[in-house]
């Protein structure tokens, strides 16, 4: 049977929640960043799905908007990993639980 918008929406919802579960439950900093990327990608999928099944795809709003989100996601990933490096060097650990003390 023909693929409709709902299929894509359900798929991106599932992917988003998987990303959310990962972000909330896992300890490791880098896995958290990975889950962040998963959530962003799920959102992108949603965007493109709405553009594909949307009223007038000629305007190319979907791909444009996704391009911008991908650019932002890339910068965010770069910055996130730079901070992870800083945290690792300071706290000597990758486990988020021990990164508690705010005071210097």
């Amino acid at each position, binding site marked *: 049977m023909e693929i409709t918008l709902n299929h894509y929406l359900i798929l991106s919802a599932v992917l988003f929640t998987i990303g959310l579960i990962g972000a909330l439950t896992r300890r490791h900093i880098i896995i958290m960043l990975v889950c962040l990327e998963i959530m962003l990608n799920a959102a992108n999928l949603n965007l493109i799905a709405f553009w594909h099944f949307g009223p*007038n795809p000629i305007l190319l709003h979907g791909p444009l908007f996704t391009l911008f989100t991908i650019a932002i996601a890339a910068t965010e990933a770069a910055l996130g990993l*730079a901070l992870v490096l800083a945290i690792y060097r300071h706290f000597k650990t990758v486990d988020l639980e021990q990164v508690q003390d705010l005071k210097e």
Partner: protein
Amino acid sequence: MTVAFYIMAAIAVLGAVMAIALRNVVHAVFSVLLFFSALAGLFILLLAEFIAVVQVLVYIGSVGILMLFAIMLTTKVTGDPTRKLLSRGWAWGGLVSGALLLAFLVPLITQSKSESNSQLSNFNPSVKDLGLTLMDPYFASVGVIALLLTAGLIAAVVAASSASGE
């Protein structure tokens, strides 16, 4: 077309789940790369060809490798499998996200509109049109994004290198 969608969706879900579940961090990152490539396939199915290419180039090509580098720089080379897996508040986290999932799915399944067929079958969006629209109405936003990218680059370099100073 429908078979391709289900295969791609299955791979995507599998990649995402493995990314969370696997104990070894490097395996997790490799499975997230699998997830990104499944998504690129989905984008091609949705006829957004350029986005699929950018997804492969940006996500798999550089963000994936960035994470691998980060792992290499932070853990000892072989990684220590002994540390605990779940954060302290994992139960609450699971509960909240489960509730959120229900909040998403329930309205979708009930309405299940049928009329959403796409007019896109005849129109194959070429990269040239995307480039042209990027330039005339959205030129300002392209400039902003360029600024943001350079700022992000410089910030990342400063954050990574200055930390080694103290």
